[in-house]
């Protein structure tokens, strides 16, 4: 089934699960529930084997589809699973509020933190209200207000990334969407409190990065992180948005790719079939990772924390630097040493 996407595959699985449920129901009605136990176990085992096989061979485009899955858990679905308490706060104190970017005071493992997240909508009404997760300048400025609040009161920040991109409509352009994102990038790079960012769905370009400059960047296994949407890339490069799957391959948009490129610190495994099949298990894995990383970076002095954050940002990128003293070309940027060829001279 090479041409089948993960969404087509899910339909097969749904059918299979329908059959299992039906078998169980009929057997129960006829009082033979115990007789079919073995059969059902076999069917379930087959289903899992099929899923394992399919998920071992996911294409990058499949990952895009999973990251955008309409049932995928969103930030506000994770909030109650990750935090003991969450009190959303609103407004940028300049112009308005933005429902595509939520944030507020939360309690993580008994300790106060600031939570910031991007939020898509589940149904049409909510999607409209939340602008399909495309955050506006007000969202980024509200986020900055909360980041500064966290800094002043020494609380860590956890951000959950899930946006197709920042809003590019006329009102957002008029109110300086570029400035709002740029300012967050600058301020987050020197914010005097620990920051962890986790990509939970779509890491769409600058809109994602606008709340994702952090000491640790985590990604759920089937989320994506991308410089531009595959459709956009295909239409710019090849004038053909239909070549989106090719673009997803070329840009290497998966969590594993991001990890290999040194952009992401850890890929968090999702339950078989994706986070939407078992949000609790996905949340538990995410919580475990957040907890571990938070403990590690909370131990650091502020000076050390900021130095490490700068080094991490400084090292992003890969390039060739012809050796300064006739040495061979070296590749820069991927290691701890931030100036590879010259540093030794």
């Amino acid at each position: 089934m090479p041409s089948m996407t993960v969404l087509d595959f899910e339909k097969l699985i749904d059918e299979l699960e329908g059959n299992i449920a039906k078998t169980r129901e009929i057997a129960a009605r006829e009082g033979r529930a115990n007789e079919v136990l073995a059969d059902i176990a076999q069917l379930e085992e087959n289903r899992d084997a099929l899923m394992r096989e399919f998920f071992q061979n996911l294409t990058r485009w499949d990952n895009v589809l999973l990251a955008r899955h309409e049932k995928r858990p969103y930030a506000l679905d994770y909030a109650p699973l990750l935090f003991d308490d969450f009190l959303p706060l609103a407004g940028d104190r300049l112009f308005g509020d933005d429902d595509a970017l939520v944030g507020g005071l939360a309690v993580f493992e008994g300790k106060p933190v600031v939570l910031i997240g991007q939020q898509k909508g589940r149904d049409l009404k909510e999607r409209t209200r939340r602008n399909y997760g495309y955050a506006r300048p007000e969202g980024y400025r509200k986020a900055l207000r909360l980041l500064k609040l966290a800094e002043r009161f020494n609380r860590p920040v956890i951000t959950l990334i899930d946006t197709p991109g920042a809003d590019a409509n006329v009102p957002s352009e008029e109110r300086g969407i570029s400035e709002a994102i740029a300012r967050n990038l600058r301020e987050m790079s020197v914010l005097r409190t620990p920051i962890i960012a986790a990509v939970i769905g779509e890491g769409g370009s600058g809109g994602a990065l606008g709340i994702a400059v952090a000491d640790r960047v985590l990604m759920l296994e089937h989320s994506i992180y991308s410089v531009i949407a595959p459709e956009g890339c295909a239409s710019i490069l090849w004038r053909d948005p239909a070549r989106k799957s090719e673009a997803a391959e070329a840009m290497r948009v998966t969590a594993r790719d991001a990890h290999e490129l040194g952009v992401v610190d850890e890929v968090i495994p999702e339950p078989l079939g994706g986070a939407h099949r078992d949000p609790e298990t996905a949340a538990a894995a995410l919580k475990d990772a957040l907890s571990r990383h938070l403990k590690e970076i909370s131990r650091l002095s502020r000076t050390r924390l900021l130095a490490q954050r700068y080094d991490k940002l400084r090292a992003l990128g890969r390039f060739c630097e012809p050796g300064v003293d006739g040495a061979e070309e070296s590749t820069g940027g991927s290691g701890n040493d931030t100036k590879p060829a010259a540093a030794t001279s």
Partner: protein
Amino acid sequence: MPDWFRRRPSSPPAGEDAEQRRGRHAATSAAVPAGLFVKCDKCGHLLPTKEFERDLRVCARCGHHHKLTADERIAAIADADSFRELNAHLRSEDALAFPDYAAKLEKGEQASGRKDGLVTGTARIGGYGCVLGVVDFRFMGGSMGSVFGEKFVRAAEHALARKLPFVVFCASGGARMQEGLLGLMQMAKTSAAVARLCEAGVPYLVVLTDPTTGGAFASFASLGDVILAEPGAHLAFAGARVAQQAAQTHKPPANYQTSEFQEERGMVDRVVPRKELPATLTRVLAFFPTSEPSSPNGEAALNGTTSAAAAATAGARNGKGQAN
């Protein structure tokens, strides 16, 4: 019909993508040096080449500011012979083995004579020593790849170590798709370098030129302590395709996504004609306590690898070298 009257081909060659289109535009449009006349890209007026060059490629009739190459820009802004280039040797790596990237890099190198769009170095403007960054749009539309980010950061660190103002002329289509996520990350990397300048009290000045869009506008280009813009430049977050879609729901003003629009909306300090930029920048530079007009040992102060400067650079890299 004389050669210089001939129309340039109006339709782009087949198989060319938007980036190449922009690059070709910059390379061939107003910059045809052979003819006696040059045709304005905007109003179509024929301008005597000599006068056009003297006017820094600004149309004498409609005021349209044509793109400048890196060398033209440096000549137009820096004191004569004051520019010393830094890190010109850095080259892009095709880390993703992205389709056609290697060929595009080569085209960019041929078009611009540089290994990346961003050209950095030390210079003097109105006598004030500074670190200067200019972008050659012919190199893959000035897009931000790893080399762009690295050169930007090294230039910022050079400025930081010597307490020199960092002046950047931006022209960029944004993050470079061919480097995937690494392209996107240059937004964070350049902004982090600006944050350090900001904290250390080193001035960072931006001049926005045509065009500055996407990831560039949403990172270092919007973070200047003072932001100037050339008249009529295309300054935007959203690309043309997205802007077109957006225009269907909200009617944009006539000057949408131009320098004048951004000035009206409070995103730009001043729109300054090209000819006035050296004088205006000099007045801005004069404001900052770090600025000092040229001194006898000027070159050493700009480029010297005195032990103090070297230590400061090393310190900055380790995250502990900042003053204050």
